[in-house]
């Protein structure tokens, strides 16, 4: 199978995480031929791809062109990481683009054709969306193996809380009153931040169904957290998706 990895505007983490598979990467290479992976290789062959992985948000004209290319030349497109699936932190910056440019660069001129950062899923149809800032690297390993073997990949649809229970971590929301977004965030990270005795900051994006952000908001408000503080916290990785 022919594989391409395309990076739009982001921190590089979701592309880098693929390299962090180490020896497992060599296992994948038994099924995949890497035709483009610009962070890791100077090799590039622009023909049809079986699988294109896209990370990052669409934040400038260049990103849009790269994304269109990846979509048009591939059978399967994977939006990888919360930037690509939900917009992640840069998607959460509020305000008009020209005002933001002025504040950062001292000019309203948009010579480099910046766009408001938006997730990949808002521009093109994707076949798989794997969130996480970054995702757990074993998830992409599994997804690529499933695709290579023609197995239908499993989607995670349970909250981080389930993974706390499985690991027997003390609930930081109930026991310590920390603002933990575990109940409304989709699991898959093995509740790694709660292992550090800290509240989940929601980096895997909102739980797709049965989430109750309004209930969570109420609980945290009753614990004494400021509404504006909570509003921003809820928005950080999810743009406008969580409503309450």
């Amino acid at each position, binding site marked *: 199978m022919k594989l391409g990895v395309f990076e739009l505007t982001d921190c590089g*983490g979701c592309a880098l995480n693929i390299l962090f598979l180490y020896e497992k990467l060599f296992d994948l290479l038994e099924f995949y031929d890497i035709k483009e992976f610009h962070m890791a290789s100077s090799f590039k062959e622009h023909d049809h791809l079986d699988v294109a992985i896209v990370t990052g948000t669409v934040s400038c004209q260049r990103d849009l062109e790269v994304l269109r290319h990846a979509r048009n030349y591939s059978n399967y497109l994977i939006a990888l990481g919360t930037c690509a699936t939900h917009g992640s932190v840069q998607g959460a910056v509020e305000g008009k683009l020209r005002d933001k440019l002025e504040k950062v660069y001292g000019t309203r001129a948009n010579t480099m054709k910046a766009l408001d950062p938006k997730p990949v899923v808002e521009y093109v149809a994707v076949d798989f969306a794997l969130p996480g800032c970054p995702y757990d690297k074993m998830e992409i390993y599994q997804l690529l193996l499933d695709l290579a073997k023609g197995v239908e990949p499993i989607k995670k649809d349970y909250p981080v809380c389930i993974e706390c229970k499985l690991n027997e971590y003390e609930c930081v929301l109930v026991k310590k009153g920390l603002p933990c977004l575990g109940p409304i965030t989709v699991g898959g990270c093995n509740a790694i931040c709660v292992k550090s005795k800290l509240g989940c900051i929601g980096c895997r994006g909102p739980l797709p169904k049965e989430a109750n952000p309004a209930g969570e908001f109420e609980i945290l408000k009753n614990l004494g957290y400021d509404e504006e503080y909570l509003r921003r916290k809820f928005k950080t990785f999810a743009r406008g998706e969580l409503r309450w």
Partner: protein
Amino acid sequence: MILELGEFTRVEGNGKAEVIIENGEVKEARVKIVEGPRFFELLTLGRYYWDVPDLEARICAICYLAHSFASVLGIENAFGVKVPEEIQLLRELGLIGEILESHSLHLYLLVAPDLFGYPDAIRMASKHGEIVREGLALKAFGNYIREVIGGREIHGINVKPGGFGRYPTEDELEKIDKSCDALLRFAKRAVNIFATQEVFGAVPEYHVATDGYLYGEKLIASDGERFDYFEHIEEKSLPYSFAKQSHYKGSVFMTGALSRLMVKSDRLTPIAKELFEQHKEKLSRGYVSLNNLAQAIELVYSLERAKEIVSTLLDHGIKGENVPIEPKEGEGIGYVEAPRGVLIHHYRIDENGNITYSNIITPTALNHALMELSLYEEARKQYGTVDENFLKHKLEETVRAFDPCISCSVHFVRL
């Protein structure tokens, strides 16, 4: 005529360059950072200080801990908080993990294919599998430290103002201690490999670094100056790049592994010091390509220093106590050495603990002007004597020597 260098490969993020040639002579070189802007300083405005280091981590995955720590230091300085030795050492250990992870990524996976004539390390592995696997082992070890200290290989949230969420166990520290010895052999071999690389790129007028080896209270420069960044470093926006450009006292300067060795070699650990002395003459020539060799020496330094830190911590025993923080109005700067050089986070915070001003300057932005100068000088030297493909390849190698981190470089603000 404009010679276009398409998007750089084997670097982090998306950048391009163009070399302008008039009447057969190289006139100018421009480095264009085409990665979109990420508006981080705006993201942090109005946010509660406690959450800010986790957001700033997302600036860059390769050096997320450097961003978290610079952020934490800026916040602690704003509140006038000092942390005890245990926390300082654990922070240093985290930064060492990051140096190991980042330098080995750069040296083995990004630069080595140039030396051995391959488009990437994966294809290089068929003939030189041992070297690639040694690099991966160093990288995995660096990441293990990042996970222990930072909470996750990438974007962990364990680093907090006043301390940590979770402190490492003795077992985890002992495991670090054991791996250091085993990996030292690989790091020494890296020094031998990169010592053979020919020199290219420009020679900077000054080197700039933090006053401690991996973080500090002020910046220092090779002319002996000890200063705050706003005293001597000037930034300007460019019409053709999402990254700004900086000068030190009006001159082009460098920051990174080579700069650290040039201004702080007196702090090196025994074997690293010996290797530095052995290659001092070459390093002192100052070409940016020597940054690769300097990084290899820092792999050795990092393994030796990690061992020292771990043994001190194990001797004293881990107490695991955070310093309590009371938010109050203040202003603070955090200076940290990211693997690729000086990283600055500067904040003002109000009495409720919310950020009112934030300024971030990253090493790639600090090196932006020198990167252009290096391309210019390299192009002048080679243009007309070699074919165009070779020239382009050479120019890309020149950019790569900076180990640029483009994602980091695309967001700056002064409010």
